[in-house]
């Protein structure tokens, strides 16, 4: 059994035999020619053939994945006709008297290098397109045919990398999953895999020479894992997971577009929790009514320095625009405790969960906070954005936050930058905030209960300590009473309250939450429809 990790570009599970796709290395040799015109004629013929191949691929792709995704082959055709590209090939042949294959390969490398060096991820990914068309021309020049997949049995395709044309050429009914060593999430292969609903993992560190065609393999897009030669146990688990996945898809079909309403007519909003711009697709796919918790930490994690205001603004704006008027609640920085970032220089703490984290950092180091607030206020112009502050314990903290927001407003006014002060709410995740929720409700626009931390603080149980699992009871009466108390205080002031912790997705409690008058449940995208199902089966009035 060999288990490897990669990045999932489409979440799904598959099991079956491997088909290793090794590209015949196009060993292009440089040779001298004597008749340049003859070489140019060969390029012309190879180009003509390529155009016909691309037209056929385009037609196939339109049928299978739709016109928008098929457009890449139209672009390939245009790239083939690009004046600079052709000129470079012609010049090399004429001035260096080299063979057509070599001129095409070198030109292709140069142009793909140009795209690879651009500072834009989308354009970087285009270097694969240039390589794709150049390889196609070289294949045509050498008289090689496109790979033939017709006789293959349904398999998991394992390859170094796949070009868009290879992806589309394959017969969809014969592909169980894609696993590649290279590739980017922005590549067309990734996009096509998503459109075709085929599980796909990229960036898997494997040696193609060690994998043989026919080996049994499991691809788990949820865990981002691929397991070669799985044990019987793994196979049984996978079969079960595939069945569950199938049932979930069924659910999706029947519940999509339906209202979140109980049998006796009570409505609730079901939103989704996400941790990055890339998850927005899952939010819409699962039919969530909005984003109830957008963790802004992703902007700060995995880098060496603070994200700029512009970077943050672009990310927030992109999300609110994509959500097109649906609510997007962005939680300000929640670093510290179990989420550490080197450049914050937070230092070691004996009790990080009770330490310097979240809003405490923001209030002590207002420069970091202000950059984020400026980006949020600016992005609020572009859609339905709300700001949520984490780890609040007192009204004083909220007042301090508002004073900083006022400073940010004054600065933006002065620079004449357009902005909007959106709805502002707080996380209810400390017992203290529950106890003073009557006063907090007067100050803020909404509450959102973070049940994970609230449980940890209320039950005095460290979430990271496995030994305490037996004592950890998320259904503890103390927690439910706290949520009820916060809900009553919110409603007294005419404010709304949601739950964005894991408990929100606990369908055993859905009915109880609705009885408390909870207005919104924010859960992971994959749980949205399950919770919708629980809501639609619930009855509130006794």
């Amino acid at each position, binding site marked *: 059994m060999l288990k490897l990790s990669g990045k999932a570009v489409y979440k799904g599970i598959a099991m079956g035999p491997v088909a290793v796709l090794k590209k015949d290395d196009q060993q292009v040799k440089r040779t001298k020619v004597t008749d340049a015109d003859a070489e140019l004629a060969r390029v012309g013929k190879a180009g003509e053939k390529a155009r016909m191949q691309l037209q056929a691929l385009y037609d196939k792709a339109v049928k299978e994945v739709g016109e928008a995704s098929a457009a890449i082959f*139209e*672009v390939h055709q*245009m790239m083939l006709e690009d*004046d600079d590209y052709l000129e470079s090939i012609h010049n090399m042949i004429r001035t260096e008297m080299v063979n057509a294959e070599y001129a095409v390969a070198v030109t292709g490398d140069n142009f793909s290098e*140009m795209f690879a060096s*651009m500072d834009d991820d989308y354009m970087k990914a285009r270097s694969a397109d240039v390589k794709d068309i150049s390889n196609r021309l070289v294949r045509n020049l050498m008289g090689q045919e496109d790979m033939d997949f017709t006789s293959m049995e349904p398999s998991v395709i394992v390859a170094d990398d796949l070009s868009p044309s290879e992806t589309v050429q394959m017969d969809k009914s014969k592909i169980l999953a894609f696993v590649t060593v290279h590739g980017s999430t922005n590549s067309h292969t990734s996009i096509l895999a998503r459109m075709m609903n085929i599980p796909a993992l990229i960036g898997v560190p494997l040696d193609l020479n060690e994998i043989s065609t026919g080996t049994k393999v499991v691809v788990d897009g949820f865990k981002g894992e691929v397991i070669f030669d799985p044990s019987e146990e793994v196979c049984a688990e996978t079969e079960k997971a595939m069945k569950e996945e199938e049932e979930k898809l069924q659910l999706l079909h029947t519940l999509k577009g339906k209202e979140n309403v109980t049998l006796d007519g009570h409505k609730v909003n079901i939103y989704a929790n996400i941790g990055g711009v890339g998850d927005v697709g899952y939010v819409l796919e699962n039919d969530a009514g909005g984003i109830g918790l957008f963790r802004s930490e992703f902007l700060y994690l995995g880098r060496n320095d603070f994200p700029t205001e512009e970077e943050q603004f672009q990310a927030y704006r992109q999300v609110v625009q994509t959500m097109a008027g649906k609510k997007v609640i962005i939680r300000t920085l929640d670093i510290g405790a179990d989420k550490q970032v080197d450049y914050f220089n937070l230092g070691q703490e004996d009790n990080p969960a009770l330490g310097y984290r979240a809003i405490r950092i923001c209030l002590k180091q207002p420069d970091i906070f202000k950059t984020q607030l400026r980006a949020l206020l600016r992005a609020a112009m572009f859609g339905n954005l709300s700001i949520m502050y984490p780890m609040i314990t007192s009204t004083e903290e909220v007042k301090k936050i508002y004073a900083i927001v006022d400073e940010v407003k004054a600065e933006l006014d002065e620079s004449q930058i357009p902005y909007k002060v959106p709805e502002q709410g707080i996380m209810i995740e400390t017992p203290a905030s529950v106890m003073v929720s009557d006063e907090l409700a007067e100050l803020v626009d909404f509450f959102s209960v973070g049940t994970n931390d609230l449980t940890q603080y209320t039950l005095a149980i460290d979430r990271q300590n496995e030994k305490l699992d037996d004592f950890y009871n998320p259904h503890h009466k103390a927690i439910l009473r706290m949520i009820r108390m916060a809900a009553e205080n919110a409603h007294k002031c005419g404010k709304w309250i949601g739950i964005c912790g894991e408990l929100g997705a606990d369908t055993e409690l859905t009915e109880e939450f609705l009885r408390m008058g909870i207005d919104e449940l924010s859960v992971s995208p994959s749980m949205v429809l399950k919770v919708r199902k629980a809501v639609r089966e619930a009855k509130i009035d006794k």
Partner: protein
Amino acid sequence: MQKFEYTVKDEVGIHARPAGLLVKEAKKFQSKVMITKEGKSADASKLMAVMGLGVKCGQTVEVSVEGDDEAEAFEAMKSFFETNL
């Protein structure tokens, strides 16, 4: 020569497909159509050069048209940018 400035509104900028359509449009005219961003210029009839400018959403480009049919080309390019980008 006639020219106009345009700020790109398309979320992903002048990416592959619109760049392709732009080239098709520019090739319809005899006039030379140039696109300039931050001092870098590209001939609008060359796809890879246009993509190579890497024009992103919110960036402003200058489009200049020069040649026999420039009045016609100017109008066509302007309406192309407004409807597609």
